[in-house]
């Protein structure tokens, strides 16, 4: 419970850190330009004659496609994180459900195995209390 509150507070702080600049900064011409681009501009100031000697093999055609690919990258990562979170939460609940009655009522019965058949979690890493 305390863990949940803390998680919400942490998440809120991150959101605030992200939203604050949108509030505070006057949107100018190059609003929220990437620092990578700014560095590139600084390079052309420091070495005006420098010519990049290689080009990307593939450049996303247009900013829409670029944002599609960035979203895809984030979605892949977030998908896996969500899968793990769901699995880990369910596993923790099964363990709790399995360990409470077995300790109180009948310690010899193999409750974890019973709990296992309820869920889809069939990997070996499952209930090994202790």
């Amino acid at each position: 419970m305390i863990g949940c509150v803390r998680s919400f507070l942490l998440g809120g702080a991150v959101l605030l850190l992200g939203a604050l600049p949108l509030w505070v900064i006057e949107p100018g011409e190059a609003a929220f330009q990437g620092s990578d681009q700014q560095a590139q501009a600084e390079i052309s100031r420091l070495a005006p004659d420098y010519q990049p000697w290689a080009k990307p093999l593939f450049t996303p055609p247009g900013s829409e496609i670029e944002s599609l690919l960035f979203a895809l990258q984030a979605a892949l990562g977030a998908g896996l994180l969500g899968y793990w979170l769901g699995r880990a939460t369910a596993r923790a609940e099964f363990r709790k459900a399995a360990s409470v009655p077995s300790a109180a009522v009948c310690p010899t019965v193999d409750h974890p195995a019973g709990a296992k058949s309820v869920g889809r979690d069939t990997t070996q890493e499952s209930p090994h209390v202790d």
Partner: protein
Amino acid sequence: MHIMEGFLPAPHALAWTIAASPFVAGGLYALRRTLQAAPERRMLLGVAAAFAFVLSALKLPSLTGSSSHPTGVGLGTLLFGPLAMVPVGLVVLLFQALLLAHGGLTTLGANLFSLAVVGPLVCHVLFRAARGVGVPFSGAVFVAASLGNLATYVTTAGQLALAFPDPLGGVTAAFAKFVTIFALTQIPLALSEGLLTVLVVNTLRRLNADELRNLPLWRGLAEAKP
């Protein structure tokens, strides 16, 4: 921290590639060993990689009026050690270089060095040091992940300053310029990354305490109350 394709002179690009390659080899070896010791850690490694994937895809606005992105390698460093994050960083950078024209193959070595070598190393050392002097667990995670992120961007500034010294002030003046662009923008984002890493580490400790206890780096640390 992505130096764009072709934006490092060839000798520099080559030098950084050579500098980064032993870490790639060491990282692959470290990963193989850690997975052989306990194959069930695959899932946890997946979580660390996924975290890096998400965070490095998010370009966040900063108080300087520009934007940049977190790196997300701190989490994996705290779980598996600094070397294990090198292959993960390589996958992230290759994805972005090949599909997003973000970074590049000629600058892959330099970008890998800042993202996956210096960042995780700083993170690892700071975490140990902070725990060593008795900083509470979450505090140590926060400091290590934030400053590891910042270290990556300071490294990029250094790499660019070495390649493009200021005509008047030399490398030092150029470094000051690049560090202003990168590090200042990065400060709020580094804080965000630190907070998010604490969030995920707390969740891991709540749900995966057994597995964490078996990680070499967490022996004795996971039990310590935050």
